[in-house]
């Protein structure tokens, strides 16, 4: 029996009287790869932010039973694209002590390079953050989240803006790390085939919780229709295993 890490109970979030999340209840257990799926505006990002304490404007309960080393990959970060901050410095904001921000040791630089290497982005280490493309930025954010060996990682659409080949690499890397480091992952994704292949649990969100359970059980045409409306359908994936997807 896996240990409970986080319990979300009766979570409600509303803005200006309009419910964005309505009575959402589920648990995150250690070892889960929990995929959160739902259409745009379903409250997926807000759910992640509420769990992480970045949104405090909610009613209901979010209980962390343990506090493992946690990291977060947001969809994007807003910053002045002209501001001088290199990829290396962006990483140094997180790792190492105070003095190592000014004069990082070879060990720390080595760790940064290794993480960037894993997402095929080692060449970006001295680039200014503002000059990166969306896909490069996404890879940098993923590499950054792997610093300091986190045990729990929240990904908000980790593959948005990444080309298909790199996306495959990213998910394979995440899966490899998951198996090797005993990770727990919470993953917001639009990619139903990815969810189908990698997730151990799915929750479907469209303001309220529409389904939760094993991907093979809950990802059926009826549920998808409920979440995504009439555009949702089922298609056979090109890989050997059968996949599900949203087809327009």
């Amino acid at each position, binding site marked *: 029996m896996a240990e409970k890490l986080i319990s979300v109970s009766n979570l409600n979030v509303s803005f200006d009287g309009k419910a964005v999340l309505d009575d959402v209840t589920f648990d995150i257990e250690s070892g889960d790869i929990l995929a959160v799926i739902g259409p745009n505006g379903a409250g997926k990002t807000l759910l992640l932010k509420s769990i*992480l304490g970045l949104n405090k404007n909610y009613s209901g309960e979010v209980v962390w039973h343990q506090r493992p080393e946690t990291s*977060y990959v947001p969809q994007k970060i807003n910053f002045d694209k002209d501001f001088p901050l290199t990829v290396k410095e962006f990483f140094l*904001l997180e790792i190492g002590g105070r003095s190592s921000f000014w004069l990082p040791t070879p060990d720390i630089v080595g760790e940064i390079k290794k993480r960037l290497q894993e997402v095929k982005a080692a060449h970006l280490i001295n680039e200014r953050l503002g000059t990166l493309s969306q896909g490069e930025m996404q890879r940098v954010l993923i590499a950054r989240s792997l610093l300091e060996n986190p045990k729990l990682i929240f990904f908000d659409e980790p593959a948005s803006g990444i080309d298909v080949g790199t996306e495959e690499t990213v998910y394979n890397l995440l899966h490899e790390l998951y198996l090797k480091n005993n990770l727990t992952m919470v993953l917001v994704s639009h990619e139903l085939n990815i969810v189908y292949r990698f997730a151990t649990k799915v929750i479907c969100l469209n303001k309220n919780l529409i389904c939760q359970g094993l991907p093979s059980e809950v990802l059926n045409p009826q549920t998808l229709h409920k979440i995504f409306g009439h555009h949702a359908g089922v298609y056979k994936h090109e890989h050997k295993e059968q996949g599900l997807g949203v087809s327009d």
Partner: protein
Amino acid sequence: MILFDNLNLIIMGLALGLSLPLIGVFVILRKQALLSDALAHVLLLGIALSLALKINAAAGLFIFALAAGVAIFFIKDKSRVNLDAVVGVFFTASLAVSSLLIPSEELLETFLGNLENIGRGDVAVSVVLAGFIIVALLGRFREFAFAAFAPDLAQVDRLKVKKYELAFMLILALGVAVGIKLVGTLLVSALIIVPAASAKIFSRQIRAMAVWSMLLGLASAITGLIYSLKLATPPGPTIILAGSALFFLVFIFHSLFKIHS
């Protein structure tokens, strides 16, 4: 002899020229360039109230600066109005009250700085505060930068982001307050922003920008003081003019040669 006669002014100019631009790095990082300008006008109310209540002007100004810093932080935190709008409201209201309370000749002095009766006390306060600003911002540079650049990521990394936001607001308010004596409320933001803006033009790294901001601030102060003593012009505006000249030189030089640091 001219140096010795103006020792107080020179020490104050160098201390502030070195320290205030470091605040500017974070002001630019936070995209709050207008904030320091507006804050200076909010602090005008501190001077006005000190005059009206007949308390020590410097003490009144610093107490008011800290109170304004805390007030702006909390209003921003609790309301959904953006920071520029909040400070804008404070700014216009305090400017209106101050112009009613401060006699017109003194109003001009507070606008452009008043260095005629700079005392040892003023110099000591400037040096201590400049030292405090440098130690606080350089010592905790990583934390201040992380909280400003990516607050969500910093919070997940268990950095107390709100604490650093409040601390920065107080440092900015103190920096503005101490700069007002030297260059006045109208020009103090230039002392904070211009050297950092110049450094931003050619810096690729935030660390380089911080170091160059301080060096350019110091260079503006030295150049401004030299010309002010030589030409007998008021030091405040002369220092700011030197800073602006450096900005344009850096801009032209960089446009021609594209050198990065």
